[in-house]
């Protein structure tokens, strides 16, 4: 029961208080700059959730083994990225075998979903927060789900911005960055922080 509660807390924290996009700017490029369609962005979010969950779980399992290595701080990021590359390779092999057409149409989306800040960040967070394998998986899932929440919030923001008279130089990326910054500020306040007077 206790572990269930701790996992639920972890998920909620990752989703709101330490949202991957608003608090850590993870994968903000995929959200704002890469021109995915609405449907593709949601699919991207779902794939990202799966990737970050599996990658974090593997990182959580590997961390105790890596802890004994010499110069682990140099090798850990390299190993994490190679792990992501291996996961990408396996996914592509399976898709090439089963759904070649789908793979051809979604190559860019898959590359962006496997090699991105959020998946790597979810793995790195397992070390910084000293999670066990179950907590690691939950935190990875939280990172992916928080991206989906950010997608939803940004869609609402874009809808509102489309009916506003925004100065020409602020249209598009700059306005969206400021919008994300304001949501980030509100979450910062929600945690209970206060700005210096």
């Amino acid at each position, binding site marked *: 029961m206790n572990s269930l509660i701790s996992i639920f807390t972890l998920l909620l924290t990752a989703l709101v208080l330490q949202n991957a996009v*608003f*608090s*850590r*700017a*993870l*994968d*903000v*490029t*995929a959200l*704002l*700059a*890469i021109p995915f369609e609405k449907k593709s962005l949601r699919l991207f979010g779902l794939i990202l959730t799966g990737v970050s969950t599996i990658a974090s779980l593997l990182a959580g399992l590997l961390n105790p083994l890596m802890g004994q290595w010499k110069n682990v*701080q*140099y090798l850990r*990021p*390299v190993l*994490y*990225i*190679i792990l*992501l*590359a291996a996961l*990408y*390779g396996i996914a*592509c092999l399976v898709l*090439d075998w089963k759904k070649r057409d789908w793979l051809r149409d979604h*190559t860019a989306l898959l*590359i*962006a979903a496997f*090699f*991105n*800040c959020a998946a*790597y*960040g979810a793995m*790195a*967070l397992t070390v*910084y927060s000293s999670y066990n394998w179950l907590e690691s998986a939950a935190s990875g899932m939280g990172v992916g789900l928080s991206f989906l929440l950010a997608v939803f919030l940004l869609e609402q923001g874009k809808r509102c911005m489309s009916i506003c008279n925004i*100065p*020409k*130089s*602020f249209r598009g*990326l*700059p*306005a*969206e*960055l*400021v919008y*994300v*910054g*304001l949501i*980030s*500020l509100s979450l*910062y306040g929600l945690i209970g922080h206060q*700005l*210096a007077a």
Partner: protein
Amino acid sequence: MQPKRNAARRNLRKGLDLIFVHNPVLITGLALAPVIMGGFTVKNGMGLSLVFAMVTIPVLVLSSFLGMLPEKIPQYVRTIACAVLAALMLIPARLLAGGIAPNLFDSLGMYFSMMALNTVWLVCAPSCQKKKPQWALWDGVCHSLGFFVCTLLISLVREFLAYGTFWGGATALPVKFPPAAYAFGGFIIVGSAAAALRWGIDRAQDIGRLVRRQQKKWRMGR
């Protein structure tokens, strides 16, 4: 000979445009996370630029060489090769970054290593497969310069606003606004910088157009 020279000139021009007109961070919106989260002091900005260059340039050149391989080799194998090289480049980058500031790696945390997965090489690597290695190298250098200029400016502004310092040393102006170093401060400052750069580019283009029109008038007047 002439078409070849024109193509070279076009490529040189395209590369130079990456520094301001098509800046990878402020205009295209690539590699935003490290700049927003890590670029709050000039030292951090320099460190990020160094890792960016050390990862992006070799990966784009490798991508160009991979483009020479037979088409039988699937695209995903090429992407994996690029990702592995990017990861391996983190080791020398970290050793060099220690020269800028010994605690740089700790200060940047996971954002230092995250540069190995920067979206610039992920987006540009497929197009570099069709380019000659020297032009892929030129692309990498110009992307790195564009990233350097943007990161340096943003980190300079943020360090000055947040701590009232420059490269860790106190400045004459007593400014202290710590939120500039936070994530939301990063988002807002990067967004404002992107808007300012767009405004500047638009004005420069307007002036260029006006000058050309005037030149044409003078020539006709003669």
